[in-house]
């Protein structure tokens, strides 16, 4: 599904100074697997997610990424989306004046277009989106609001999950979709992921909390520190981190 080899990337800050953020990431995700990525603040988890989705703010200096055999790094963000890659953003952006339903329908039909499927008409779309909204526990009134505008933190995250359910990606990256959620919302997010799990669809779940991983049980847990994955293991690794923090791993890594 996804093979990342020795990925290195930097960004230029306001002073135009290059700042290395990804320092050689290796990661392989097979079809149907759920991978969790944990790691301290600022270690590069969101950067990795953004680079995979094609954010043009980062310069890639080394490494390659293959997605279902395709060279992912040569594709535009929209081509990656069409190929089945989805990113639930850590900070979903607001788009004032753009109707949420219109946005969702345009997105869905763009992706259907790439798949050579006919666009969904308004009626079919509406019944589909309403059923998905029920799954994530979103009120229908959010359809007529502007995209994320004035949404609470939790509402934005639910909206991300709604989009994921609508677009049915092959690989979904969830960047801290669980942060700032109440218990019900957390379960709604987990349910969203679990209903999509079908043995071939893969997930990368970025999180700080073991709690989410009790609902979405991962196949592999990775720890990212300073732009590198320094440890990988089973779901018990997440439990160990919860108990001990990152210190012991960082020390180990430096040895």
């Amino acid at each position: 599904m996804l093979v990342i080899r020795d990925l290195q990337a930097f960004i230029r800050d306001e002073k135009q100074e290059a700042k290395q953020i990804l320092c050689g990431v290796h990661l392989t995700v097979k079809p149907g697997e759920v991978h969790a990525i944990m790691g301290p603040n600022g270690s590069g988890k969101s950067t990795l997610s953004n680079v995979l989705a094609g954010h043009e703010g980062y310069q890639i200096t080394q490494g390659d990424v293959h997605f279902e055999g395709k060279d992912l790094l040569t594709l535009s963000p929209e081509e990656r989306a069409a190929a089945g890659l989805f990113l639930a953003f850590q900070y979903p952006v607001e788009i004032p004046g753009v109707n949420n339903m219109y946005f969702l329908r345009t997105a869905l039909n763009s992706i259907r277009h790439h798949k050579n499927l006919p666009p969904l008409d308004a009626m079919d779309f509406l019944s589909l989106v309403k059923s998905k909204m029920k799954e994530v526990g979103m009120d229908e009134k959010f359809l007529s609001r502007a995209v994320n505008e004035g949404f609470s933190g939790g509402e934005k995250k639910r909206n991300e999950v709604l989009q994921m359910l609508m677009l049915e990606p092959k690989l979904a990256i969830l960047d801290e979709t669980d942060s700032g959620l109440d218990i019900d919302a957390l379960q709604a997010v987990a349910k969203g992921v679990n209903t999509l799990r079908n043995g071939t669809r893969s997930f990368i779940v970025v999180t700080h909390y073991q709690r989410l991983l009790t609902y979405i049980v991962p196949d592999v847990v990775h720890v990212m520190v300073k732009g590198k994955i320094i440890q990988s293991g089973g779901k018990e690794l997440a439990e160990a981190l919860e108990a001990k923090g990152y210190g012991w791993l960082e020390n180990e890594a430096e040895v």
Partner: protein
Amino acid sequence: MANNYIKQLVNKQYEYGFVTAIESDTFAPGLSEDVIRRLSHIKNEPEFLLNWRLRAYRHWLTLEPPAWAHIQYPKIDYQSMIYYAAPKVKTDGPKSLDDIDPALLETYKKLGIPLHEQGRLAGVAVDAVFDSVSVATTFKSKLAEAGVLFCSFSEAVKLHPELIETYLGSVVPYKDNFFAALNSAVFSDGSFVYIPKGVRCPMELSTYFRINAANTGQFERTLIIADDHSYVSYLEGCTAPMRDENQLHAAVVELVAHDHAQIKYSTVQNWYPGDEEGRGGIFNFVTKRGACRGVHSKISWTQIETGSAITWKYPSVILQGDDSVGEFYSVALTNHRQQADTGTKMIHIGKNTRSTIISKGISAGFGQNTYRGLVRILPTATHARNYTQCDSLLIGETCGAHTFPYIETKNASAQLEHEACTSKIGEDQLFYCRQRGLSEENAVSMIVNGFCKKVLNELPMEFAVEAQKLLEVSLEGSVG
């Protein structure tokens, strides 16, 4: 990073840039009292009008073009311009569509404006002004049943001279400014509307202006009078051929709303904007003003300004009647080398007068976009209220946005609210949309449309979709 979509500001061909091959009667270039007399004579105008033109001309000679706007352009040579060009007709003027040159009908068809009444805009009465003269007005009989007068300005001068004499220059006096004086001296045609007392105009009225002839200035005048308790919605649209030279368009629009009357005036301005390098394009220097003379009267201006090399216009409202309402909703888009200096004036005179200003400026390429607005509260205007919101959206690093909101309050009971914000079209917004599968162009047009939503909502339904498309086309190529 941002540069890869900004760098490629490529030109989308202006769709309306064709020229109609048609014989026309034109004056030699140049302006003098003699030219004005000939013009007035051709049009068979009454004495009062000729005298008014001449007074305007003499006043104009004493004026200098205004220099305060945030625009730059070469000096205009007023003696090298042609002041009258009219498509040749066999008779005095077209009596019906059958008298109109088929080439003209074809032109309007290409522009998407069918002059045949069974056309696409079936619920809309159209007056078409080609170069200097009105060539057709549709749905006349249906409007006449309601008592609505809708005709070319020239025709109104012939048929209703008393209305013209009463109202002409009563809102925009010829002394108002340089371009208004010039227009008053040489205007050749335009549209006239009168809605009698208590009548709600049964359909949208609209005028399409088309400049065709080379080297001609277009100086049209629009006069709309809404008598007590009447209502009218009016829309103007404009296009011009692509030419390497600049052409001057200096129009005047006057609106008068009596007691409880409402006028809704919408503009979709798509004059040729010039090419990528800033060659050619229309200089659009326009004076538009409405007078809310009566109590509880209301005038709304809605404008979508996407064309012209230079736009200089400030549709304004004089809120004279107590409880009258003035509104200004504007989207001004400048791409490539276009410059726009536009805004409004709300002059509060009566008690409890209210005004709303929503201005959305969008700049791309090397476009320069200026909002200039004045809210003036006179001592008599107790409890006047104004709400102003002017937002700018920048696409790329090479364009500019400027806002000059002026406020003058001479009455302490006034309530004024002002909001302004300038934002860059967010790379994060673009990335978000593209991550969801939208192409970059679709993403930009969606974000821009969202930004303009409040203004687009004010357009008559028949035109909202076209305006949206126009924004898309005008931005096409602003991203790579």
